[in-house]
C-alpha cells in the first residue's frame, strides 16, 4: 500500500490537537460548503463553520472530531486547521451545550430587543430585570449569534455522534 499521505495539523489556542498526523484525506465544512481535501490539493484557504471534521488516517480508518469554527489552510502536502476549539466526539457534552445554547439564545433575544428599542421601536417593553442588566453589560449581537450557531452545531454533533464514522 503506497497511497499518498499528507500531514494534518490541528491547533487551538490551548493545545496542539494533532501535529503532523499522516492522513489520506480530510473533510470539513467551510463557510462556502463541505469540501474534502486529498494529497496534492491546490493551495486553498477558507474559514470553517462549527461542525465535524473527518479524516482518514494512514491505516484507512476514518475518524471525526468537532471544531467550533476557525480556519483552514490546505497545501499539497499538508493541511493546517486553526480552530477556536477542537474536541473529540465522545468528549462532547450535549447537556452542557444545551444549557449554553439556552443562555446564548436568551442573551441574543435580549440584545435584539435592546437594538429595536434603540431604533425607536415603541412596542418593545423590557422587563425590570432586563432594565437592570442593560446598565451592567453590553450584548454583542453578532458574537451571540455566532455562539448560538456554535452550540447548535455542537449539540448536533453530540447527538449524531454514532452516525459519524469514528474510532471506538
Amino acid at each position: 500500500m503506497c497511497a499518498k499521505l499528507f500531514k494534518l495539523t490541528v491547533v487551538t489556542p490551548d493545545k496542539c490537537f494533532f501535529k503532523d498526523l499522516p492522513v489520506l484525506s480530510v473533510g470539513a465544512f467551510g463557510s462556502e460548503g463541505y469540501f474534502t481535501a486529498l494529497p496534492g490539493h491546490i493551495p486553498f484557504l477558507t474559514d470553517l463553520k462549527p461542525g465535524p471534521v473527518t479524516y482518514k488516517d494512514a491505516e484507512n480508518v476514518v475518524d471525526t472530531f468537532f471544531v467550533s469554527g476557525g480556519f483552514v489552510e490546505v497545501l499539497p502536502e499538508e493541511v493546517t486547521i486553526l480552530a477556536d476549539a477542537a474536541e473529540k466526539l465522545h468528549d462532547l457534552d450535549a447537556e452542557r451545550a444545551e444549557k449554553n445554547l439556552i443562555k446564548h439564545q436568551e442573551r441574543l433575544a435580549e440584545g435584539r430587543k435592546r437594538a429595536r428599542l434603540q431604533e425607536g421601536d415603541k412596542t418593545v417593553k423590557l422587563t425590570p430585570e432586563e432594565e437592570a442588566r442593560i446598565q451592567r453589560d453590553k450584548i454583542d449581537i453578532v458574537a451571540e449569534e455566532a455562539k448560538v450557531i456554535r452550540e447548535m452545531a455542537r449539540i448536533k454533533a453530540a447527538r449524531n455522534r454514532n452516525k459519524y464514522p469514528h474510532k471506538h
Partner: protein
Amino acid sequence: MASLKDIKRHIVAVKQTQKLTRAMNMVAAAKLRSTQNRTERFRYYAEEHARLIQEIADRSPPDACSLLLPSESSRKVLILGITSDRGLCGSFNTNLCSHLDRQIVAQRKDGYEPELFLIGRKGRDYYNRRKVKIYSDLVGVTGSFDYVLAQKIAEALIEEYMAGNYREIYVMYTLFKSLSRFEVTFERFLPLGQEEETAPKAKSPAPGHDGSGKVDQDYVIEPKADVLLTRLIPRSLSIMIYRAMLESVTSENAARMQAMDNASKSCKDIIESLTMAYNKARQAAVTSELLDIVNGAEALKD
C-alpha cells in the same frame, strides 16, 4: 567592631530574608510552569495565524480592509507597553522601560507624537513621573487575565485607529526565549501588512514556509480574500495582544525566579561571612578572657 550580639542578630535577620527569597523563588517557579505551558501552546497557534493572515493580505487588494492601510490623518503614535504589576523581578521592568524610552525618543525625532498605553503597575509608575502622554493604563491584570480581556483591548485600539486618532499603533513586550533569556520586542500592531524598515526589531519570519525550496503558491481563497480578511483581522489582533501578554507574564515569572535565586545565593554568602566574623569575635573574646585569667593567676603567684 560589632559586638557578638549584634552579629548574631544580623545573621538571624539575613536567614529570615533567605527564607523569604526561597519561598518567592518557588512561587515564581510554580507560576512559571503554568504560564510557560500556556505560552508555548499558544505561540504556535499565533504564529500560524499571523502567517496565514499575511498570506491572505498579500493576495487581496491593498484597500481590502481599512486596518491594512496606513493612516495619515494624525501625527500621533500609540505604543502599548506591557510591564509587571509587582517588582522583585530583576531588571525585567527597567529593561522594558529603557527600550520604551529609546523608542519614544526615536519617534519624536521622526516628528511623531508618541503616546502610551501601559499594562502593569510598574510601567505606569515609571511614566507617571515622566513627560509622556499616557493614553490609558491597566493595572492589576497580569496576575490573571484571559483572552476576553485581550479581545477588549484589541477592540478599543482598533476603534481608536479607525477613528483616525493614531497614525500607527505598536506593542512592546518582553519575549520569553528561555529560562534565562528574554528579549524586549517591538511589533507593529496597526496597520497590518508589510512591515517597513521603520520597525527596529522586525518580527522573525514565519516559521517553516519560507526558503525551503517552496515556490510562492497561489491560493484558492473561499470566500473572496477581502471578505475572509475582514473576518479574520480582528481576531488576529486579539491574538497578538493576548500573546504579548502571555509572553510578558512568562518572562516576568522567569525573571523573578532568577532574581530570587540570586538573592538566595547572596544571602548564603552574607551568612557565611557573618558566621566567620561571629566565630572570630567569639574566639577573640575567649582568648582575651583566658589571658585575663592567666594574668590574674600569674599576678597572684608572686
